């Protein structure tokens, strides 16, 4: 006969708090929600984790011996935050050693220029609160519009530059947060955490008309 669920779960919690593996048995399936909540709380209590140097070294050794093709494209290298000089983006780099490419500043997100594009009315300027982001759609273009001052607006894409997920406006933190992974961006599209080497969000063209309407360049 198995142990009582509170004892089994506490054993799992105790192991997790000691940094041990999850050692589960079939009967623990009844408490899967409690167990996964415990694992997430333990992780949350420890902050964002990075690979231990020894593990990183082991993983590097394993990757060196794993079969791999030429999977890394120039675009991938850029998005991965390698920071290739802008002039190198458009030509002449194939075959050049990556060792010559030092990490550099993150690229600013390229503008979204739909073709054919058209200006789409997304509301009155007064509908936008200064300092707050508002999700709008201009045809196929999704964007967050920010009223940066009483008379000006800016806009960035609503799609994360890392995983293709819809961002959400976290008004409390003043950031655009990705629901798919730990990434967030400032209203100007720059990532809040430079450690992950994310590229900035794509810029979206936006304007205020003479009649006080906000228009976004969409489709």
């Amino acid at each position, binding site marked *: 006969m198995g142990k009582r*669920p509170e*004892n089994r779960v*506490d054993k799992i*919690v105790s192991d997790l*708090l000691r*940094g*041990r*593996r*999850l050692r*589960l048995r079939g009967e623990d*399936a009844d408490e*899967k929600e*409690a167990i*996964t*909540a415990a*694992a*997430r*709380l*333990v*992780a*949350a*209590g*420890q*902050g*964002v*984790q*990075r*690979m*231990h140097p020894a593990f990183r070294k082991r*993983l590097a050794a*394993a*990757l060196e011996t*794993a*079969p791999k*093709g*030429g*999977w*890394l*494209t*120039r*675009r*991938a*290298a*850029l*998005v*991965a935050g390698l920071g290739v000089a802008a002039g190198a983006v458009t030509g002449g780099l*194939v*075959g050049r*050693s*990556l060792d010559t490419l030092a990490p550099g500043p993150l690229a600013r997100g390229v503008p979204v220029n739909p073709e054919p594009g058209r200006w789409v009315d997304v509301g009155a300027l007064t509908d936008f609160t200064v300092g707050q982001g508002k999700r709008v759609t201009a045809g196929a273009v999704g964007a967050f519009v920010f009223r940066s001052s009483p008379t000006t607006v800016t806009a960035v894409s609503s799609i994360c530059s890392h995983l*293709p*997920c819809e961002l*959400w406006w976290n008004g409390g933190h003043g950031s655009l*947060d*990705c*629901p*798919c*992974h*730990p990434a*967030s961006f400032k209203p100007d599209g720059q990532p809040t955490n430079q450690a992950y080497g994310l590229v900035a969000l794509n810029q979206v063209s936006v304007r205020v008309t003479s009649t006080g309407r906000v228009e976004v360049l969409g489709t």
Partner: protein
Amino acid sequence: MSTEPGPPEGQEVAGEGAGEVLELPAASRSTAIALDELELVYAFIYARVGNRPDAEDLTQQVAMKAIPRLRAGAPATAIRGYLFATARSVLGAFWSTRLGLSEVELHEDLAMAIPAGPPSEEPAERARRILDGLSDNYRRVLELRFLHGYSLKEVAAEMRSTVGAVKVMQLRALRAAAKVRLDG
């Protein structure tokens, strides 16, 4: 039913500007790039299993499964998307094996589901928001146990209760925490 993701297809990303394939003369350089991508995967996995040994094993599985299958010419978004799809698959298999459940049973509520909450905030803040959704007693027992590292005895003393009662309360609090949704 397999949850194994297929490798990113070249034709799916044709419009993304797949780019020319860089020749990678130094293996260590491409490995360093892969490791940077895998740091994200590691953090993602760790946040779900809560311990280093399992997170390391699963991250290595993701690396060994995904990296060799990435196609030449795949853009970064496809590479990262594929790594995370593989991570979800590996996590699903992990929970499935450990709990003796089919991956179909796990699909909706565990590793495979996209988090409903805002995971971009600091983990401690996320924990705080979960705890704030609980009743006072449940919040207190989880705070003491998970955020302050109290033993059961210490929690019992702090809450003027017994170890047995705290164990039961801890289990009920975790069940309740699993139901807290961080949508707002």
